[in-house]
């Protein structure tokens, strides 16, 4: 029994020596920039950014594939630190013009009156009867797109709402940008 233990230990030791030799001759070099960014990120590997872990997120940040605001746990201060580390400015993410919602619209040449879209609509915004042309009520449609998938003839599509007197509103007053808090104020709060 002693001999078998010795033999296995010997095989294991020889293998271990060989592996450490390989590790010495083929060292694993991590990209120093990736290591630096990974150090900045929370390191909890939560995956909320959509990448497998913080290392992959750091690689995507360096390639410019991911926005600086990708990390929900890190919040605004993380975005600012990343912007400093990568030398990329934080853009204001506000659309220049208000985007109007897309609403469903029946293409009258394609509608066969099958009522399938009516059954799918969660807000009862489509009116029509079997073998009759259907119509979307713009006031009730919330643009969820369920009817688009239900239509067998692709006769219903989402089109941007047309602005007219009946649906025009004053735009909301601009809110303060959460990324604009000065750095000193953030440090003082901590």
């Amino acid at each position, binding site marked *: 029994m002693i001999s078998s233990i010795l*033999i296995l230990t010997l*095989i294991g030791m020889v293998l271990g020596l060989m592996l450490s030799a390989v590790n010495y001759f083929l060292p694993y070099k991590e990209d120093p920039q990736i290591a630096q960014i990974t150090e900045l990120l929370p390191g909890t590997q939560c995956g909320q950014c959509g990448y497998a872990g913080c290392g992959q997120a750091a690689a995507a940040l360096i390639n410019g594939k991911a926005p600086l605001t990708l990390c929900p746990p890190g919040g605004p201060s993380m975005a600012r630190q990343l912007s400093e580390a990568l030398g990329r400015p934080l853009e204001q993410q506000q659309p220049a013009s208000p985007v109007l919602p897309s609403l469903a619209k029946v293409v009258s040449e394609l509608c066969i009156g099958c009522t399938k879209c009516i059954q799918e609509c969660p807000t009862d915004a489509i009116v029509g009867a079997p073998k009759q042309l259907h119509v979307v009520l713009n006031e009730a449609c919330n643009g969820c797109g369920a009817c688009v998938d239900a239509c067998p003839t692709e006769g219903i599509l989402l089109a941007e709402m047309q602005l007219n007197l009946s649906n025009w509103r004053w735009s909301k007053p601009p809110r303060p940008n959460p990324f604009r808090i000065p750095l000193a104020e953030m440090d003082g709060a901590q």
Partner: protein
Amino acid sequence: MNEFFILLLGTALVNNVVLVQFLGLCPFMGVSSKIDSAIGMGLATMFVLTLATAASWLIEHYILLPLEVEFLRILSFILVIAGVVQFTEMCIRSLSPTLYQNLGIFLPLITTNCAVLGVALLNTQQNNSFLQSVLYGVGASLGFLLVLVIFAGLRERQALASTSKLFAGPPIAFITAGLLSMAFLGFSGLPLQ
């Protein structure tokens, strides 16, 4: 020469390690969704299998048989396989980090690929010489690579085809694997002798 060719062809096609002997099905189902990673996995397994068969033949004939400790065979073979896999992992990590990320968890899992241990044990069972053992390993891993790439190609096409909801995803993959296995059984009719 002819004999070695027959051995190679026989292990790669007639006694295919995946589809005829049903060894190593885990990577066969797991890493076959993309051709690129299937080729990477096949080549990594090929490397491991060939090295492991050679190393296990040496251990069998220079340590286990002279010292009369044949009962340590499976244990020491697994030790050697684990070492070779670790060696492969280190090589891939420093030579191709992209492939390392693509293979992910399946790379260390080559250790538990029963094809690797199975081929090493079959070699001792058939009393093969060193050259025959290595060729057996190369043939088996060539067969593994071939089947993995064929299956990955089929699955890539299946992903684009319209499959009924009942069969979409893994079920149709399993059915395809069964059909592929039946197709490979046809190689047993090759007049190799």
